[in-house]
């Protein structure tokens, strides 16, 4: 339904970001994430196959070590599709770009993450443009091997595939931060600095509750970045991702410039500061001018009707100390500092045993004492047989029994490693023939053999940054209090709730039961359950 193959310019691109609503199938112009291997993700903007591209007859092509993938094979397919590599006609391109391709292969992820974009920029040679749609794009021929998967963009895959300009905040941290600073649909969030936009993409998903129409307040991210190139790069990305109306990026030094937009308040209730000196920006994030609370002209960037939740993200403890001190003095409460340790686990089959199939994953030593014992016994028996035979047939033997045993054992060990599949221990070593692996002696297919184990990834991130959280309640003036007091006047006789003494509780329960009689059965049962719970809770629920 949307596999339109016609070239689409940006203005015609789908309005809703593929990050927020990717649709069922891939589309021209959309960002897609190619998954080359589990942890190797590569972003690509899908281009319409309009004639030759960069020397390829098939149009734009992504080259990976798993083969070549013309964009045309990746457009209009369901997300998540496995894409086969194609035999591409490099034509004139082959020689020209060979060096570049090699380079990208060698440099691995970083290089390949940008290579597609480089090509995009090169593409507009006049010849190609003139070809336009008339130039028949060469029909694609599937290659014999190689494939990738094409994933819809999400902040998670974007974070691990985006072109890094700075350190970025990864999923374990941002997922926790967004939960704690209550970034939800409809929230307005301030972020500084934008950096590479990793956190921005995660936060816009959290606050998104529809694209705003004129004058409408919707969930939105106000992001600030003072590094000019990063600012421009990110603005371009936001546009390409159709996020530009949801993330408002400002080129500014927030220490001096603060967080207002054209002098007006963004009315934020969630804040994330990933800056070298967050405490220098904090005074802007107050309810009133901290230096002069009477200052009527001072505008707060915070939502005056809501509590504000902040998180600052700093790698060093000294930064934390300064930030926390500033937060205390600026009236923030519930100050809390944590760091997040994330670990990934791999699962595998641990295969130990003398009789397991032979391959590199297997530890061909005894699985247990019984197996060791059986093997030793067997060796012993064989040795005796052998010795007896030798005695009979060969009198030249030097009679050094010990030496003979040792020699045998050595051979055994060698053989044991090489040959797992045989029940009988063979003394003569022959190169293992593949057939012997066909059915492991355990009778189990390979993937079910051995014990399932988990182990941590080989390298773990032990420290990312310290996360400081705090809350700033909304301002509450005496007038506010007077209004609330008038709306909720204290009236006379009152029932006590909360911590009440035993007698009162019993009396209430009795009344409760009386009221309950005559109600429907279901209701009665529900109440009984409730009472049981209350009773149980009553014992433990005393305030310490």
């Amino acid at each position: 339904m949307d596999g339109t193959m016609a070239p689409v310019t940006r203005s015609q691109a789908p309005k809703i970001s593929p990050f927020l609503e990717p649709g069922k199938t891939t589309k021209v112009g959309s960002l897609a994430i190619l998954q080359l291997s589990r942890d190797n993700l590569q972003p690509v903007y899908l281009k319409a196959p309009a004639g030759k591209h960069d020397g390829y007859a098939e149009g734009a092509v992504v080259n990976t070590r798993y083969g070549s993938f013309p964009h045309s094979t990746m457009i209009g397919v369901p997300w998540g599709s496995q894409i086969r590599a194609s035999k591409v006609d490099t034509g004139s391109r082959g020689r020209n770009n060979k060096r570049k391709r090699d380079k990208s292969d060698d440099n691995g992820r970083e290089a390949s993450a940008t290579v597609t974009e480089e090509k995009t920029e090169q593409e507009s040679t006049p010849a190609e443009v003139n070809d336009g749609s008339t130039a028949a794009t060469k029909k694609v021929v599937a290659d014999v091997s190689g494939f990738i998967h094409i994933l819809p963009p999400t902040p998670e895959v974007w974070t691990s595939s985006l072109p890094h300009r700075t350190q970025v905040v990864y999923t374990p941290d941002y997922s926790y931060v967004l939960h704690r600073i209550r970034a939800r649909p409809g929230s307005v969030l301030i972020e500084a600095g934008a950096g590479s936009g990793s956190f921005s993409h995660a936060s816009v998903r959290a606050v998104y509750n529809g694209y705003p129409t004129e004058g409408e307040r919707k969930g939105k991210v106000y992001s600030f970045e003072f590094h000019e190139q990063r600012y421009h790069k990110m603005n371009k990305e936001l546009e390409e991702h159709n996020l530009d109306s949801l993330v408002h990026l400002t080129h500014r030094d927030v220490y001096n410039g603060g967080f207002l937009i054209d002098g007006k308040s963004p009315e934020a209730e969630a804040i994330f500061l990933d800056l070298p000196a967050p405490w220098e920006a904090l005074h802007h994030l107050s309810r009133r001018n901290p230096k002069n609370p009477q200052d009527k002209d001072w505008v707060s960037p915070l939502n005056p009707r809501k509590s504000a939740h902040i998180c600052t993200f700093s790698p060093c403890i000294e930064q934390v100390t300064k930030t926390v001190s500033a937060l205390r003095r600026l009236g923030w409460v519930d100050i809390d500092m944590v760091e997040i340790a994330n670990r990934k686990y791999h699962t595998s089959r641990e295969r130990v045993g003398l009789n397991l199939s032979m391959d590199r994953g297997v530890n061909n030593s005894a699985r247990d004492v019984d197996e060791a014992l059986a093997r030793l016994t067997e060796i012993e028996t064989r040795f005796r047989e052998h010795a007896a035979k030798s005695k009979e047939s060969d009198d030249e033997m030097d009679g050094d029994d010990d030496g003979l045993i040792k020699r045998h054992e050595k051979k055994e060990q060698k053989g044991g490693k090489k040959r797992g599949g045989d029940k009988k221990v063979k003394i003569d070593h022959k190169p293992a023939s593949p057939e012997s692996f066909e059915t492991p002696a355990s009778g189990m297919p390979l993937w079910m053999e051995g014990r399932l184990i988990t182990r941590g990834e080989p390298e773990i991130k032990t420290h990312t940054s310290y996360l400081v959280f705090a809350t700033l309640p909304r301002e509450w003036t005496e007038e506010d209090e007077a209004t609330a007091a008038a709306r909720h006047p204290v009236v006379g006789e009152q029932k006590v709730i909360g911590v009440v003494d035993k007698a009162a509780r019993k009396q209430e329960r009795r009344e409760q039961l009386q009221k309950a009689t005559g109600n429907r059965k279901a209701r009665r049962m529900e109440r009984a359950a409730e009472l049981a719970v209350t009773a149980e809770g009553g014992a433990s629920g005393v305030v310490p």
Partner: protein
Amino acid sequence: MHSLIRPNAWVGLKLPSGSTKVMQIIPNTTISLGKYGAFPANLVLGRPYHLTFEVLDKTSEENFSRLRIVPASELHAEAIAEEDEAEGNATPATGSANDAVITATEGEEFSLVDEKGNVVARSGREVIDDSAIQTLTQDEIEELKREGNNAGKDVITKLMLSHTALDQKTTFSLAKYKLLKTKKYIRRFQVVPIDVASFAQWQLEEKDASKIMDLRAEMFGLVGCWGNVHYGGEDSIIDDPHSRTDQGEETCVPIQTDELKGRWLAVDDTCGMLVAAMAERMGVLYPKEGNEEEETTTEQTAEAKQEVKTETPTQNGTAKENGDVEMADAVPETTVPERPKTTATNKKQKVRPRGSDFAIPFSQTNTLTIIHSTSQPNLSLLNYWNFDITAPNHPPHPLLNHLLNLTWLQLLKPELDTSYSTPPPTASAEELASWKPSRRGNFHRKRRRFARTRYIVDSTRAGNFSGLVCASSMDPISILKHTLPLLSGGAPVAIYSPSIEPLAALADCFSVPRRTAWTSGNVPETVGKSLEELERWEGNEQFPLNPTLLQGVSIHTSRARRWQVLPMRTHPLMTERGGADGYVFTAWRAKPAEGRVEARGKFKKIQPSSNKKASKAEEESTPVETPAAVEEDDAATAVKRKRADTLPPLDTEGASTPENAATDDVASPTKKRKVDGEVEV
């Protein structure tokens, strides 16, 4: 989420002891915090969250305590004073820091209380309870003074030493006593809103962690993000078919699969905690916010109450009771009930006029579908957000139009489910008119139930869900067997488990050897089956799941370590909650290509490591090499090698790998070598 405390809202009261009390703020009652004092509930109504209040002494004119808002400067006075001290003095002695603390809060009272909260001593006063005093040796006092890593203890020491009455007795066993800096301090509390983060923390740390399967804040973050749970688009309600009462199921609205968007599938054995977390991320947990100040007022006035009461008699069951605040809330006293009753917080809103029997109340977008193993889902915790799935006439709540639920039977064998398979009753208008009201009610109820069940089951079975999130005690393999086909391509799967074992077993279903065997056509059962048939693979012993239906399988865990940040005393907390760490399985739904797909890698494998127990000579004789994953390639290679002898060689380039999708990033061969070296050691 409201920023002002509304009548009947569930809130958390954070007490000086560090514990939280979760309760409903019922208008015109007195809230008792036990020894922390009691005050009229109306004094916090309409006030903002996160403020700290102090319960004042009763004045002679009034028979209740008023509240005072404690400014943040007062809350932080001690830390700020210490900081200033530390700044002025590079290496402050503990003693001098204490002097500063006490002067900073001059004019306030210090109280020493025992474990039961009885006041034992007050600064500047006589010892109240002599019997509580225990003697302490001089050495112990000295040690306490030296320790100095706990503000409370420092001040206790200070207090005791400065106290004349205590001086004589030497002093107390400090471990037994707690310092409450002032008498006033004791009676402070902060009101926090019940949102997912605060409620879950309370449930985990103070209430009953097992009820929410030990879900920690970190896990809500991971599951929510990896499950890509977010606002799924503007509501789109299907037009009412306006079926007449004599029309049957043929007039039910058909499922418009293309209109179904932004839908998440969930399996929740956490009493609704997971659903609440997902609903919060989708924007359907809290009622829409209007002008809060005004809303809370109208409700408070006598007329408003009256209005509510006149409305309720038409409703039955829970809703009826909820109208009557007095009665509905008679139970939750003293402690928090396990199942708080729902109370319409938004009574001003009228219940939407009900459509015809076959009208579908659910949005086609931004929905949450839960599959449950009992005939009714257990979502009792949602009552804290005033949602009760069992209430027949529910007051307005966003979940009503966005939460769909069905049983596993309805999903898998709908024909065996009575409410799905029994055709709706029909009757002419005249017939209906002749019936008693109760019979008529029953008639409509049956028809409505039929239409809704039909819609939920059919739309769920139509699949195309945007994601799957689980926190269930059921075997995740069995869940995925039936839910994988329902996921749209590229949709994420995020499964929480308190322990790693079930997730490891699940990940093993997608191991490289399994996938390789599957795709190489070595599984006789798969031969001749179409992709669609394989998507609905029933599973067998060797292949519990179709191993090609997920990509990027990972298991992770996160742990937040909490720190104390104080001048000269910044360090991680000494103890934290133990128990289940919690793990998350994540992956994306893949759409495998038709036919056999060979993987490949255009590079030479680096030397295998010694832990693989293969001699170098043999490695060299192996004709093809593969990119390596530290764990997984071993088995993968084995399969491939095995296959190499049974199948004609497919990869003429001689550079094939059984499955590139799970191999390591080969861009860092040096790193890999290092890792292997480490294993060897």
